[in-house]
């Protein structure tokens, strides 16, 4: 090591900045190795490395300076404790001419401040001292108004993670004027002379208050650079939205750790809801949600917040609904306002219905006492007169009821205010929207509510048991007569499907198992066909069913493999095994239906390669496949390799019949990928008219659930009435990720066609593209490139996984 060091030392003085740059990088990467080598002089060696790097903080070349700081950060990352002396050096670099140096220096200061938060540093030109973390905080705040936006982003981001900073420094970030408690008088005498308040600058909000005030003090020392004041005020109104987003994020993190700060920064956050750039608005809504435990919204703030509900972006509205779910409102007017705005939102954007109902559910259950006085007004009841019964299907009315019922849950006096029809509506909603309407203790309806509520909780367990049991039953009954097996499979599939519909959390497992069973059922049915017994010329017609079954099994296996998230290796083996059986079936069917042997040669060859490939891929799992088709197949492999195609087919046929039904182990977590197209809604009667030959853009908005890596797998398909199909790959930026397992696709699809005489419907649907290579576990020797191209089993295909939506379009002939 030592020679390496000395060698580096020599090159560090090289005239080329590139050489010095690389040397420093090397030092950063190897720095701590010296520690282990020179064990005795450990501290010394370490400091040496830091000192060597530190010397290059004042190099003449900015690139070298940057490299030096980066090397220092690298040392820190690798676990070396940086020396506190670096702090002062780094502070000098904050006024460097080059932005990359400043940006790196900010980072370094942050690192040091996290290492030595409680150390005391002196304030220049005075004998005052403050904590290092406060000093660093002030310095980084100052950088929020740097000339370069790269530095500003960096500084704003880092501010968020400085939680140890003292609260009065923190609060200073929200006021551009230097607060008096961040100044110290030089002498006690002066201190006694006057007590002074906020500052000598005026706020510019009143006309005429900007006459110069009396000079307050010249001898005072600023504990914080006055440039650092109002860092967040600056950050939040920066011209680059990148800086604003960083500032909002930082604000969020600091507010989470300090409730008092959260209260103070609320106004600023609320103002950010009016930002011009959507990302910033969205970010600030999310931020607000995260800190909503610490805060209560005032009415005027709520006003601003609610105004955003009219935003045309669905993302923003939904984020806001989520925010409202966990917001504390202080007055009943606030609740009323929120309700009114939400209803307005509902009429303007009916697609937000579910989100709004959910939002009102939480709003009601959080503020029962505030809702109570509003009930008569909301239900428009009158003390003397009966009023008309509202329409039960009106989403707005349902929204109001959701709010009230949820509030009534913890407010027993509320049901007394309900009119008769309200109770009826309650019963109806309790059944139809049970996830939104809680069980209430209503007078005279005790039985219903008490009977329902206890039965909900344990309900889940028996259904799971039921699932297990029905599967067990199928697997155990291996040797039932064919008829019985078929029937049992059919019943079980039906049961599973129904179960999936009832219990959404079991839907994935149920569907997955049902699909597998269906494959098996198809296979059994195909093997029972009469065609195997009749003479060759006759089964041409009958073979349709068998080959269709083979094809369908293939499709189903691809669905099983690629449409579910959470599928593990042990399931993949079974799925592949099933596919292999389907291929065997296909081979047999073709062998029986085609004349001549020549095409068979190729097919047999291919099939055997597949078997070989299967064996190589799943060699580790083979022991689990006792008695299975492939198990037997592999036993006979040597014989198969040498025999003629006709014999091969014969052997396969017997083996297919003899093979047992493999048990499909259930994965822990399995979810079926699904997609719903929200837009286009497919209800429009007005065709989308455009000139033929030109394109028309169709907005597509869909939610995707449990899709892994949607950017590369999800496609949009457009089917024209003439059978022409078009596949569109959405841009990666079109996918949003609002929550774990959920994605949203908002994209534009371009349609075009030649002229039509009549408007007609095109179908739009989403496809899940798959590539069979992606799932196969890679063995080392496969990666070694031994796989010959013809065994390349990468089969690419697509599975439709959303309902198709019809869009009415009309390409007009171009006018000349």
């Amino acid at each position, binding site marked *: 090591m030592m020679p390496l060091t000395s060698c580096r030392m020599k090159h560090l003085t090289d005239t080329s900045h590139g050489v010095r740059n690389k040397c420093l990088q090397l030092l950063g990467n190897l720095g701590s190795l010296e520690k282990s080598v020179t064990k005795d002089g450990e501290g010394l060696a370490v400091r040496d490395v830091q000192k060597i790097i530190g010397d290059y903080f004042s190099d003449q070349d900015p690139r070298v300076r940057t490299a030096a700081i980066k090397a220092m950060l690298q040392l820190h990352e690798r676990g070396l404790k940086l020396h506190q002396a670096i702090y002062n050096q780094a502070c000098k670099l904050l006024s460097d001419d080059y932005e990359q140096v400043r940006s790196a220096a900010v980072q370094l200061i942050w690192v040091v401040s996290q290492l030595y938060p409680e150390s005391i540093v002196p304030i220049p030109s005075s004998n005052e001292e403050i904590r290092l973390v406060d000093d660093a905080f002030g310095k980084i705040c100052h950088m929020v108004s740097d000339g370069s936006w790269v530095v500003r982003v960096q500084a704003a981001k880092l501010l968020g993670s400085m939680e140890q900073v003292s609260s009065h420094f923190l609060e200073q970030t929200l006021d551009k004027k230097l607060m008096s408690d961040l100044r110290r008088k030089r002498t006690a005498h002066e201190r006694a002379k006057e007590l002074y308040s906020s500052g000598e600058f005026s706020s510019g909000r009143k*006309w005429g208050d900007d006459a110069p005030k009396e000079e307050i003090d010249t001898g005072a020392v600023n504990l914080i650079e006055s440039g650092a004041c*109002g860092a967040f005020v600056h950050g939040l*109104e920066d*011209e680059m939205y990148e800086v604003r987003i960083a500032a909002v994020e930082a604000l969020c993190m600091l507010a989470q750790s300090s409730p008092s700060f959260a209260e103070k920064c609320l106004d*600023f956050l609320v103002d*950010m809801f009016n930002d011009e750039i959507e990302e910033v608005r969205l970010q600030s809504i999310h931020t607000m949600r995260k800190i909503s435990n610490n805060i209560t919204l005032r009415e005027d703030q709520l006003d601003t917040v609610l105004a955003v509900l*009219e935003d045309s972006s669905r993302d923003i509205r939904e984020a806001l609904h989520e925010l409202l779910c966990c917001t504390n409102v202080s007055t009943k007017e606030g609740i009323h306002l929120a309700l009114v705005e939400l209803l307005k939102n509902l009429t303007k954007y009916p697609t937000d219905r579910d989100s709004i109902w959910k939002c009102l559910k939480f709003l009601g259950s959080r503020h029962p006492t505030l809702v109570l006085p509003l009930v008569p007004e909301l239900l428009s009841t009158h003390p003397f007169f009966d009023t008309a019964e509202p329409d039960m299907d009106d989403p707005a009315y349902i929204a109001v009821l959701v709010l009230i019922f949820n509030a009534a849950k913890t407010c027993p006096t509320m049901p007394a205010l309900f009119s008769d029809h309200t109770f009826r509506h309650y019963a109806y909603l309790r059944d139809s929207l049970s996830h939104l309407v809680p069980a209430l203790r209503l007078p005279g309806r005790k039985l219903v509510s008490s009977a329902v509520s206890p039965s909900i909780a344990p309900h889940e367990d028996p259904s799971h048991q039921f699932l297990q049991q029905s599967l067990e039953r199928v697997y155990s009954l291996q040797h039932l007569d064919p008829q019985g097996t078929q029937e049992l499979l059919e019943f079980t599939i039906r049961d599973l499907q129904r179960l999936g519909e009832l219990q959404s959390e079991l839907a994935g497992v149920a569907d997955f198992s049902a699909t597998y069973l269906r494959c098996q059922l198809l296979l059994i049915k195909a093997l029972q066909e009469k065609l195997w017994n009749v003479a060759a010329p006759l089964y041409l017609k009958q073979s349709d069913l068998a080959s269709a079954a083979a094809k369908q099994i293939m499709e189903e296996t691809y669905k099983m493999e690629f449409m579910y998230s959470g599928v593990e290796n042990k399931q993949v083996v079974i799925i592949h095994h099933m596919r292999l059986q389907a291929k065997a079936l296909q081979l047999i069917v073709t062998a029986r239906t085609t004349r001549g042997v020549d095409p068979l040669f190729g097919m047999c060859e291919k099939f055997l390669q597949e078997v070989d490939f299967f064996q190589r891929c799943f060699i580790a799992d083979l022991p689990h496949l006792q008695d299975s088709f492939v198990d037997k197949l592999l036993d006979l492999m040597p014989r198969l390799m040498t025999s003629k195609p006709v014999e091969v087919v014969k052997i396969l046929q017997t083996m297919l019949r003899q093979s047992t039904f493999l048990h499909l182990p259930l994965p822990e977590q399995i979810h079926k990928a699904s997609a719903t197209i929200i837009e286009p809604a497919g209800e429009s009667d007005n065709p989308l008219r455009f000139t033929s030959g030109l394109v028309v853009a169709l907005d597509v908005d869909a939610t995707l659930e449990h899709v892994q890596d949607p950017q590369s797998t999800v496609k949009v398909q457009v089917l024209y009435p003439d059978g022409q199909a078009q596949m569109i790959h959405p841009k990666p930026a079109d996918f949003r990720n609002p929550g774990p397992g959920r994605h949203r696709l908002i994209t534009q699809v371009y349609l075009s066609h030649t002229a039509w005489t009549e408007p007609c419907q095109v179908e739009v649907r989403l496809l899940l593209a798959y590539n069979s290579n992606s799932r196969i576990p890679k063995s080392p020797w496969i990666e070694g490139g031994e796989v010959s191209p013809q065994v390349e089993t990468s089969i690419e295909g697509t599975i439709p996984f959303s309902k198709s939506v019809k869009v009415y379009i009309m390409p007009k002939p171009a006018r000349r």
Partner: protein
Amino acid sequence: MPEIRVTPLGAGQDVGRSCILVSIAGKNVMLDCGMHMGFNDDRRFPDFSYITRNGRLTDFLDCVIISHFHLDHCGALPYFSEMVGYDGPIYMTHPTQAICPILLEDYRKIAVDKKGEANFFTSQMIKDCMKKVVAVHLHQTVQVDDELEIKAYYAGHVLGAAMFQIKVGSESVVYTGDYNMTPDRHLGAAWIDKCRPNLLITESTYATTIRDSKRCRERDFLKKVHEAVERGGKVLIPVFALGRAQELCILLETFWERMNLKAPIYFSTGLTEKANHYYKLFITWTNQKIRKTFVQRNMFEFKHIKAFDRAFADNPGPMVVFATPGMLHAGQSLQIFRKWAGNEKNMVIMPGYCVQGTVGHKILSGQRKLEMEGRQVLEVKMQVEYMSFSAHADAKGIMQLVGQAEPESVLLVHGEAKKMEFLKQKIEQEFRVNCYMPANGETVTLPTSPSIPVGISLGLLKREMAQGLLPDAKKPRLLHGTLIMKDSNFRLVSSEQALKELGLAEHQLRFTCRVHLHDPRKEQETAMRVYSHLKSVLKDHCVQHLPDGSVTVESILIQAAAHSEDPGTKVLLVSWTYQDEELGSYLTSLLKKGLPQASS
């Protein structure tokens, strides 16, 4: 002694009539050429006779720079160039060049057609004047002549506003014009690099103000307008046709759209439409948001804002009217104000600064009874609100800009004297630089020490490099060479080359020095002792004892001779050429200390 001289002809401890003369390294530059809104007599234009009484202005000025199109920065331009007479180049940015003539024409119309002034510049003069304009791009370095160069930086404030750096050699001045350090709804923030000018001339309109967050202001503004409209009142917002007007329009437009309000918003004068056209055009000068979204929708295409007709002022029902000019000193805004002042439901919002003497200033100061022309007294019952939307940097912003540019000294213009004084103190305290605030006509002289570039011949440089180690920025280093000054350029060459170039023969220059030594021994022995002494002291020099009894150290010769009178004293003759001066003088001082006592 080189110096920079600055004389404000206008805007010195005052707002309005910006016009600043700068002489830098023999070049004279005029910064801005504005009119004063508070005056209607000769005082409205700067006193150009200060520059020259009878000569052509063109001979005295190298160029004129206009920072932006506000009339207090460009209003006197046609008068200056056509009536007083100036034919040199006038520099301004493209948007300024486009919008400036519109405003000048408007100004001319009001002055000539409405007030009936004679001896005012004509439309033709405006056209002729604009022909002399040279448009510059942001960050483009324009070479005015061989030495003088100017460069524009983005300044926010209004569309096309720029700060200018004026540079001659290594001396430079930055003039900010009006600028804004916080971005608004349509423009970005001013920005300058660390150009370290000798002098920064900055505006200081808001010298004593640190504004709250701009978002609070916007919220307040919208709330006030909304409330007034809700109760059926009319809202008058006096603005200058360009600048704040566009920002407030965007603000109200988006608010109206969001809140779905129906009350009409009007914008007075046809001037705006023309100007709005330019706003749509110069997208690159606007802020990030507008630049990013103009493909979908240009923010300056307003849906709710319609052109105003004089008859609309009497329409019943609520409305919002933007009217020019912004300080209620004349024109349409004043007319509407008179109509609406009597109703307490109505409101006037002053979004910016008002110069003393204008109606705007009076009502903001709380005056409720105004004396109008013809002895009428107007009672103001309507609400008067002030809202600082003016796009000038506040004290914080000014300090921020000073911090960014790192000037050697600062000069404040375009502000009130008392407030300047305050800010001056703050700047001096915080940045430890000199700060000036001259009044109109007062000259500030700044001595400068410009660095003079000297070219070094490659041969000499390489020789030096070969001799020593790497150049170290922190340590000064001695270098021998000859400085040749020829046609005001400087070169440093080796002496041989200098001799050759100048055709001179080389002269040898030798210093000789006698050192008396008390030594009774013979000359040879003395020489021997000197030799051994020097040998031991000067380890890294070549010390030789020659056969003729003399001693040499490098090229320095030392001979010992007996003193003619006193045999006990020896005289050492030390001789060296002037190139070895350093070593030679060291040697003599060493020998003067005497030889160490011989060990024998």
